[in-house]
């Protein structure tokens, strides 16, 4: 079955003759005697091809061509021109006519024009089909990909978790063994040592569970108007004893010009605790450096206008091997062997992400590591919890 074709000419004779010629070629022919009638019929029947006279009373062929192309760019329009209407014919090509045939109409010329129209139609159809297929294919493949990535992520998470739990369970078993020996031999020293090990592992499990819980919750930062330096001072007070125990100097360099800003003090507190814990671990790693360990915690106003506040944690510890740096924020990645769960930096990054902040790491193997966080807003959050944070409990000022 060939295409529907709309034949438009004000001369009845031409409509009749051409109509028969087109029917003979297998087309289903519709006819109209002027532009308005043609347009109406076009809208009703949506023929694939329009064959129209250029010169007609009222709306002429060029105008009809423009309207048809506007409404349906894929329709092929062939113009019929009289002698000496070459200008109009060329003009029609500018408006995307498929071709033109001159009166009196030569059957072969008409055949060529129709063939061209059909080729163009079928090309466009194929193109559309390919495009749609391609889109469907892309959709299908990406759905598969996402699914498999999700499965892989779950697998990794479970594997990482199993590993972390296995480590702690192994530690507990060691503790239990020592306690058993204490009981068996009535040895108080073993008892106390073993009990101490058990307690430490219980604390590790608890802290890991908290980290996990923290991580699994998609938590919205509790924005408060607060002084970023207050958080730094709290963290310094908290981490001081740990640093001293590992014989690491913990210094602070605060930018007192930092304004009060909107952020989640508790979240940032956790980030800094994680970063400083890592920094102290890196410094107390005696195998790589015999210098005295030093950790510096800084607050600063970032140069970029995007964030009102920044923290920096710098250590002169072992540094991170270059090839490992891209992995440090990954789930369950740890450089601390059986001691690390790989949750600390992952949680830290998550908190920073939830703040729409940024975190970066600079490290030179053997020289030390620097973590930078930029975060905060100068305005309270507009939507949702903005109301509750309008009355900030964060007005605790140092």
């Amino acid at each position: 079955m060939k295409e529907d074709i709309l034949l438009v000419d004000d001369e009845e004779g031409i409509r009749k003759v051409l109509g028969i010629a087109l029917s003979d070629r297998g087309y289903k022919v519709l006819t109209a005697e002027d532009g308005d009638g043609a347009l109406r019929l076009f809208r009703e029947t949506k023929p694939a091809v329009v064959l129209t006279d250029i010169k007609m009373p009222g709306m002429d062929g060029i105008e009809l061509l423009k309207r048809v192309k506007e409404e349906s760019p894929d329709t092929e329009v062939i113009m019929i021109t009289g002698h000496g209407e070459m200008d109009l014919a060329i003009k029609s090509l500018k408006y995307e006519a498929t071709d033109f045939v001159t009166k009196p109409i030569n059957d072969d010329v008409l055949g060529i024009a129709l063939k061209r129209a059909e080729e163009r139609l079928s090309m466009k159809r194929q193109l559309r089909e390919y495009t749609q297929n391609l889109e469907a294919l892309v959709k299908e493949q990406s759905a598969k990909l996402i699914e498999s990535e999700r499965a892989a992520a779950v697998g990794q998470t479970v594997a990482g978790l199993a590993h972390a739990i296995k480590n702690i369970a192994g530690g507990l078993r060691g503790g239990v063994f020592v306690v058993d020996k204490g009981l068996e031999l009535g040895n108080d020293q073993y008892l106390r040592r073993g009990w101490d090990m058990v307690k430490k592992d219980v604390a590790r499990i608890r802290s890991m569970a908290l980290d996990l819980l923290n991580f699994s919750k998609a938590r919205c930062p509790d924005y408060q108007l607060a002084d970023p330096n207050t958080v730094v001072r709290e963290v310094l007070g908290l981490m001081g004893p740990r640093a001293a125990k590992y014989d690491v100097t913990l210094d602070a360099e605060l930018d007192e010009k930092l304004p009060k800003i909107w952020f989640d003090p508790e979240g940032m507190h956790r980030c800094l605790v994680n970063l400083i814990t890592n920094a102290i671990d890196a410094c107390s790693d005696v195998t790589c450096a015999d210098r005295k360990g030093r950790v510096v915690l800084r607050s600063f106003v970032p140069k970029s206008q995007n964030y009102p506040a920044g923290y920096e944690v710098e250590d002169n510890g072992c540094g991170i091997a270059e090839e490992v740096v891209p992995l440090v924020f990954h789930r369950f990645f740890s450089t601390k062997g059986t001691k690390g769960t790989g949750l600390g930096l992952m949680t830290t990054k998550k908190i920073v992400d939830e703040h729409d902040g940024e975190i970066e790491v600079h490290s030179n193997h053997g020289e030390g590591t620097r973590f930078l966080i930029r975060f905060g807003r100068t305005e309270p959050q507009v939507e949702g919890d903005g109301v509750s944070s309008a009355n900030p409990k964060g007005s605790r000022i140092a």
Partner: protein
Amino acid sequence: MGQKRILVVDDEPHMRIFMATLFETSGYKPVLAKNGAEGIQKARESTPDLIILDVMMPGGGGVEMYRQLKGDKTLKDVPVIMLSAVDDKTFSHSLKMFRITENGDLPEPDAYVEKLPEADKLLQIAETFLLNSSVNVQE
């Protein structure tokens, strides 16, 4: 005949206490070190009958200490049990790679035990070496 000395080198306090208790209660004298540098020093001081060495320690780790041990005239024949948190195959592969870079002149450790070891299993392996060494090394 004095107590046999076992040098335990591990950066984790838990592991040190666990192994110390294990060997102490089995009639041996544990000597503890928390890293490779300390391990080498204590090995030279006490000439142990057996060394248990954690591979995965920060920095150079156990492998570096192992290399030093094997380069030391008096210590090179002391049996070494390597402790590692990774599984058997991965471990021996990485060790092989390591020995290749060392021009192949580094012998394999006498035994390998996966962390965290069962008390009985570790003791059993340790004792096979301690019984052997009473013939070979004891002066």
